[in-house]
Every structure is written in C-alpha cells, then in structure tokens.
C-alpha cells in the first residue's frame, strides 16, 4: 500500500519531493553465506527501551536495544503520526522482527543474532546522523555483526 499513488495527495507530494542525500559512489561489502552471518536490526522507527528518553523532534542520535529486550519494554516514539502503529501494537515483529531472527538462527538459516540492535529517528535529516551511524558501524563490527537488516517505518 506504500505506493505513492495510494497515499493522500499532499503526503505523496511531500515524499516524492523529499530531498534525499546523494552519494557519488555506493559501498559494497561481501560476507560469508547467510548461515554463517551474525544479524542485527537497525530501525528508524524511533524505538526506545521503556525508561529511556524518547526521541523528540529530529534527534540525530541513536538508542541501543539489547537483544534480551522484551516486547513489553519497547516503545515507539517516531515523530510522524502519518504511519500505522496498530501493527506494532499487535506484534512488535512488524517493525522489530527479533523473534523471527531468533527462529531463523535456531533453524540454522542465519548464523546468530547480534547482542545489540539500534534505533534512529527516521524523520531526521540523514546527513545529521552520519557521525552517529559511523559510531554504530564500529559497535556492530565489535559485536562481530556481518549482516544488518535496515528497518524503516
């Protein structure tokens, strides 16, 4: 349903005209077969562990989501009210598919699930996030992660 033609005209126009950063080149890193990879989720849904500071405005920082986080501990603080929250309310895997990754690891389809996952506020200008994203990349590497599933909302 997230086709521009299905969205309200004003929203579709805003998304179509949204200025996206452009890059001269696109990086490319290879890795082992999926069954040997360690997978992390990086979300832009403004997710926060309950008790931590919710995202406000266009915060460029990130929040840490440990793998032992339970569904009842994860809050959704994305600034936009123009996206569905009821799916996440019914089942957190719609946005943060940690249960599915655990199942795939148990089935041997992926190697393992990362110890830590990360969340950004997707409404922030990505250029403002760059330094924080590079920090997350270093943290992911130190956890041995070699596959990141980027989850928008």
């Amino acid at each position, binding site marked *: 349903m997230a086709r521009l033609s299905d969205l309200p005209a004003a929203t579709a126009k805003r998304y179509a005209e949204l200025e996206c950063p452009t890059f001269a080149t696109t990086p490319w890193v290879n890795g082992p077969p999926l069954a040997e990879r360690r997978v992390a989720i990086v979300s832009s849904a403004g997710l926060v562990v309950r008790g931590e500071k919710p995202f406000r405005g266009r915060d460029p920082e990130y929040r840490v989501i440990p793998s032992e986080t339970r569904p009842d501990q994860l809050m959704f603080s994305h*600034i936009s009210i123009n996206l569905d929250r009821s799916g996440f309310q019914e089942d957190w895997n*719609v946005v943060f598919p940690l*249960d599915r990754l655990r199942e795939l690891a148990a089935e041997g389809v992926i190697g393992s699930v990362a110890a830590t996952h990360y969340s950004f506020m997707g409404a922030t200008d990505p250029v403002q996030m760059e330094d924080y994203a590079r920090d997350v990349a270093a943290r992911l590497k130190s956890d041995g992660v070699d596959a990141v*599933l*980027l989850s928008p909302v």
Partner: protein
Amino acid sequence: MSALGHYLEEGGVPTVAISLIRAQTENTKPPRALWVPFELGRPFGPPSDAAFQKRVILAALRLLERERGPVIIEDFPDEDPREQPDPGWRPPFAKPDLDNGSATRLALALEDESERVEAAFRRAAKERGRTIVGLSGLSVGEAGRYMAGWLRGQTPESPSAEMSAPLTLRFAVDDLKAAYIEVALSGSATPSSKQLGDWLWNDTAAGAAIFALRSMYLTSEDDRLKAIAGLFLVPGVRVPPSG
C-alpha cells in the same frame, strides 16, 4: 534508511534495507534494498503472521548473498493480507451521541469515555502482556482529563518538569489513541488498520475531541501549540479537505 545503509557499509558492515517508498530508495541508491508493498509503519507486513514476516526477512537477507552489486533494488511480490478488513471485527463500544455538541459537552463526553476505556485498556494490556502507552506519563483517564482541560480553553499544567504543556498535550493524545487501538485489538478478530482508524476517528468521543483540539489551536499565537495542532494530532489522511 537507505542513507544509513551507505554509512554502515562504508564502516565495513554489509546491509540490506527494507524500502517502503521506492522512489526515495531509487534516489539514495543503497547497496541492497527490498521494496515491499506494505503500508507505512509495517515494514515486515502483517502482524501475527510469522510465516509471512519470515518470507519478507529472508527475501531481504538473501540479497546479501548476491555476488554482484551495488546497487540491488528488488520488489517483494505479495501484498499484506491484513490490509483487507475483517468483517468479523466489532467496535469495542457503541458510537456516542455527540451531534451539535459544544466543546464543553465534548470535554465531558471525553472524560466519561476515557475513564471507561481505561478499565478495558488495563484488561487488554494484561491479556497482551504489553502496551505502547506511556509517553505522557499519564494514565488513560488522566490523559482524557488533560485533553478535556484544553478543550475547555484552559492550559492545564504539565505533570512533568521535563515537558511543556503543549508537548504533554501531544503525548496525551498519542497515548489516548494508542490505548483505544489496543482495546479495539483485544479479541480474536484481525481488523485492518483502516477499520481501526475509521472507528477511532468517526465513532468515538476521543476522535471528535482530537479533531476539535486541532481546530481550536491551529490558529494559536503560541507557535509550539500551533505546530502541534497542525502536525501531531490528526493524521494527514484524516484531515478534512477544508483543512
């Protein structure tokens, strides 16, 4: 999301992005992306459908095994079956009679309704084992009363030193909407997000109250309040054409 893919991959970590707006992904050109035909807010598709979600995840992760790239943008072929309405779903309570109601009458109706919803919300949260309500720090009934104060033209004091009164209004509205939806989701039916939204916005005192708050404060001289009224109370798809 696609820009994050650039930054992380430049840092040496392979990435694959789920794409909800294909045009944005085409502009940003991440290393790998899977476009999905789902509504905003549901990147992995239908709730409570593990098999479907797993197909989406695997379709994305398998792109990591491609040897040639960048840029890879593939399309997931299947629609989200939960976008279809469930004819078996029933609203949790009957539509209140609000015709020609003044703001004061609407405030009373909101206080009464949110108090009743609080009890149902507590049962639903216990049954589900979780809730996303909690941004304002107010209970559901308190959030209703806080909003009712604004409907009466007052500026109720924020209960938190860290939040201004307008920000508390925004989070109270977020919490109230979330609580109503969680009540509407209890039971075995599988309503679509549109069914839930149609009920909240058209058939509850809370929906009518949020529309009224938007209208009241859209022309406020307080810029924060004006911005919150215009951008953070009523979703764009629900704003009437007259604005």
